[in-house]
């Protein structure tokens, strides 16, 4: 057992863990943040994507020890003061989910994508979704949702400036 400390969704946490614990299990089973999903054991599906220090990572492919001291954001940390994040809002408006299993990973991937590339076209979005699989194959509306969110977030910034 080792003690790990980090910030998760703005809150400091410190827990005892087995060395072999993967980040996704730490989040789901120890912190009970079950919004982050596990859809495969081959690092392919992306349903486990969270942000570590602001960057999207696959939490099923990291040990919890690797994020010692890091700042973690999960899907539970996106909405602020009861208000959905613009990407969450866009998924709702564009019917970007069917069963919803892939959605947390899609949304965390989309937030990271829009941060890196505010000017997104549909081709780029599809390319960037390389590591996320939607078993319901609802890609069309997922792409629309991300495109819509990117446009709105860009608009918001221009107005604010």
């Amino acid at each position, binding site marked *: 057992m080792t003690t790990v400390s980090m910030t998760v969704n703005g809150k400091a946490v410190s827990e005892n863990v087995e060395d072999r614990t993967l980040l996704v299990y730490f989040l789901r089973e120890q912190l009970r943040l079950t919004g982050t999903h596990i859809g495969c054991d081959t690092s392919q599906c992306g349903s486990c994507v969270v942000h570590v220090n602001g960057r999207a990572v696959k939490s099923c*492919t990291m040990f919890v*020890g690797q994020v010692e001291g890091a700042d973690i954001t999960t899907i539970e940390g996106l909405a602020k003061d009861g208000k959905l994040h613009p990407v969450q809002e866009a998924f709702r408006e564009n019917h970007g989910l069917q069963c919803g299993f892939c959605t947390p990973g899609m949304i965390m991937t989309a937030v990271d994508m829009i941060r890196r590339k505010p000017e997104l076209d549909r081709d780029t979005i599809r390319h960037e979704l390389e590591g996320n699989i939607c078993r319901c194959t609802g890609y069309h509306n997922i792409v629309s949702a991300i495109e819509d969110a990117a446009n709105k977030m860009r608009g918001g910034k221009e107005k604010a400036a």
Partner: protein
Amino acid sequence: MSMISYPFGYTRAKSLAEAQALLAKTPEAKLLAGGQTLIPTMKMRLAQPSQLIDISGLKELSFIRVSGDAVVIGAATRHFEVMNSADVKRAIPALADLAGGIGDPAVRHVGTLGGSVANNDPAADYPAAVLGLNATVKTTKRTIAADDFFTGMFETALQDGEIVTEISFPAAERSAYAKFRNPASRYAMAGVFVAKTKNGVRVAVTGAAPCVYRETQMEKALTAKFSPDALADIEVSPDGMNSDIHGSAEYRANLVTVMAKRAVAAALNG
């Protein structure tokens, strides 16, 4: 609770010196350099190290620097940093391209150059660039030429306790990388890195055979004439190529030619 079905120890090294000391004390330990290949391998129990020493956080191994006409990249540098580096894009755009095509964005945020090269997965992309550009691998003990580094499937010239610290990539006059991805796994079924330098052309192939290798007949033909049609009469032998449910050896041999032509065409356009 963990999804890795057996227990093992994990230590995060705070410096290269500490990593070396830990490795000397526990020779059975394996280095964790990002883990984007190692962790999936451990899930399938294809690797079962009893102890991991994590070197992925070592700042001293995370850098990109230009030195003469070479780009020197630290072993713990993320693929994401390489693909976006203005220095890499200027000096060796093909290398930035290759890094940008590894895995997916989340994998590129974590995976490292040193990890990819030391692991020498037969379908990894970086070994093709190292061999194609005639790079030099620097370790805690010595420097190793690319031609001597990759020795077989998942095998390299690295000895016990030796850690890759940086790789120096000489810039080429022209270079490009083309790969054909397995439609499901997205790993390269054949990837070809072509580099034209003043000392001739090098052609390195990954994905098709058990280990990255040079296609010397293509090198000769392309040194004489750097154009895709210089490869028209070259038959790549399927002997020793990988053969599985995704493609026969003959199919892969053909892919090598197709990817080589594409890489040469891209190098000419780049």
